[in-house]
């Protein structure tokens, strides 16, 4: 088990050493987002912006205009919806080299309630021209994604959850991770489950159980939601004939929508289902209970898969 947030903090330090033009901003949540690790190591390149996210994003763009690689972090809910206009104008429209790294995405934030459970961020960022949208699944992948964000030019958004996640990828696997390329985690011929971020782990657990019951599910870790790996989606549709998407996000506008758009435009009529938050605000509660109630755990993945196969 490792928290992707820690992975982010550690990677920032490493990248900070490598790139003297890398700077980090946070909006009074550095202890939670783990940017505090960078702040301690490189205090002169860390800017505490206080509880003023709009100012943080536009300031990030100003720094980027002077050749800085800028990481700006806060919770997903404040990193996107609250500052949509700043991201739109100063980051996306201006093609600024700003990397918005958001933590606490999705409903598994838990007890803070729907005010803090961001389920629209991927949709909001996906719709912006020039924006790359990422949702890494475990600590190893997060480290690699953060590195790729720093070392590829352009506006990018990444979100991770709050909780610890079992290690899915061994370190040596890191080098094969590329932006815009989905990962086939497990092969299978009966159905494809395409998931991202916090949902990849329960999908893997579900796949193991399904296997014992004779269902061969292929698992795709679609860490890059935009640009979407359309070729992989089409390949899976052709080869398995059924697709489920799973994300800790609204079923509207996120990974599920992106996959559906691809399939529809390629005239692919496959059995298809989106798992995600079904156009409701959720509530306070233990993450486990929330994921059960809102249909996003291993049990629900198994149920949906069986219904669709």
């Amino acid at each position, binding site marked *: 088990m490792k928290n992707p947030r820690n992975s982010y903090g550690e990677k920032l330090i490493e990248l900070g050493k490598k790139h003297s033009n890398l700077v980090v901003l946070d909006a009074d949540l550095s202890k939670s987002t783990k940017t505090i690790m960078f702040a301690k190591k490189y205090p002169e390149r860390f800017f505490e912006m206080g509880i003023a996210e709009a100012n943080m994003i*536009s300031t990030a*763009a100003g720094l980027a205009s002077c050749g800085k690689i800028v990481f700006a972090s806060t919770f997903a809910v404040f990193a996107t919806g609250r500052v949509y206009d*700043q991201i739109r104008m100063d980051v996306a429209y201006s093609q600024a080299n700003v990397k918005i790294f958001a933590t606490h995405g999705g409903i598994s934030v838990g007890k803070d309630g729907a005010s803090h459970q961001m389920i629209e961020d991927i949709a909001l960022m996906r719709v912006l021209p020039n924006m790359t949208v990422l949702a890494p699944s475990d600590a190893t992948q997060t480290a690699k994604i953060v590195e790729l964000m720093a070392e590829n030019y352009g506006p990018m958004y990444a979100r991770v959850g709050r909780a610890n996640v079992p290690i899915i990828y061994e370190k040596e696997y890191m080098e094969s991770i590329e932006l815009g390329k989905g990962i086939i985690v497990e092969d299978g011929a009966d159905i494809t489950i395409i998931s991202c971020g916090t949902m990849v782990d329960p999908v893997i657990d579900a796949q193991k159980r399904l296997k014992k019951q004779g269902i061969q599910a292929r698992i795709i870790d679609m860490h890059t939601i935009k640009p979407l790996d359309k070729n992989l989606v089409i390949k899976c549709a052709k080869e398995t004939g059924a697709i489920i998407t799973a994300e800790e996000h609204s079923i509207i506008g996120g990974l599920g929508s992106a996959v559906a758009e691809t399939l529809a435009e390629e005239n692919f009529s496959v059995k298809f289902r989106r798992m995600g938050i079904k156009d409701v605000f959720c509530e306070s509660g233990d993450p486990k209970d929330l994921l059960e109630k809102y249909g996003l755990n291993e049990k629900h993945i198994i149920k949906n898969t069986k219904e669709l196969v």
Partner: protein
Amino acid sequence: MKNYDENTINKLELTAVKIRKHIVEMLYGAESGHPGGSLSAVDAIVALYFAHMNHNPKKPNDQNRDRFILSKGHAAPALYGSLAESGYFSVNELKNLRNINCLLQGHPVCLYTPGIEASTGSLGHGLSFANGVALAGRLDKKEYKVYVMMGDGETDEGQIWEAAASASHYKLDNITAFIDRNFLQIDGNTEEVMRLESIRDRWNSFGWNVIEINGHDMVQILDALYEADNHKKTPSIIILDTIKGKGVSFMENNIDFHGVPPNEMEYNLAMEELDTLQKKLEASN
């Protein structure tokens, strides 16, 4: 205080008239745009580009350049006119303002136009962006200055005050902001729409060095810039007492010309007035 010879001031005033004519022509040609706020802001912009800033039109991305950020992006014609006359692009481009496949968008875009630092048009962002540029300058030990122009109505935006606090907190004395204090915004007088006074007290209380001047007086503008540049430890703001629509009699203090271009008759009348002013200035040279 610095002494400027009369010739320098006269030249700047002539340039300002020339750019006022560009503004009127551009907006007449584009059949849309914002005359009022362009005409009120133009004198300070001219002072920056033609006398005060360290910049080179041939090297728009020079790392040591002073930066100007037009936070009130709707005054783009004033900036475009100044950039064209400075040599960032051809004066001929001005007639294509707001046309399809054209360099000059309705509001400034950094990707499209040489010399544009920030994409603006949605109000309230520019000062934050300037803060980022100023922080980068400090990190890189660069001497450059960052200038940013806000509208008075624009400071209704909450983000301005986040940025004001931030610039003060980080002691960004390499920033000089302007407020184009023309007292008018779309829905009417700024004090009736959303009271701003006392602007001086507000910025003072945020820790800024506040300078108030006549925003159409070149000597006062240059003196204020000199004072602001030499003020240390806190950012400076120059409150420009201006007249919306300045230079065209029937546009002055007339909110109907905030976002409406002149018709043919108004265009001819405006150009006539500006021509007369230009001749007067040329005669006194």
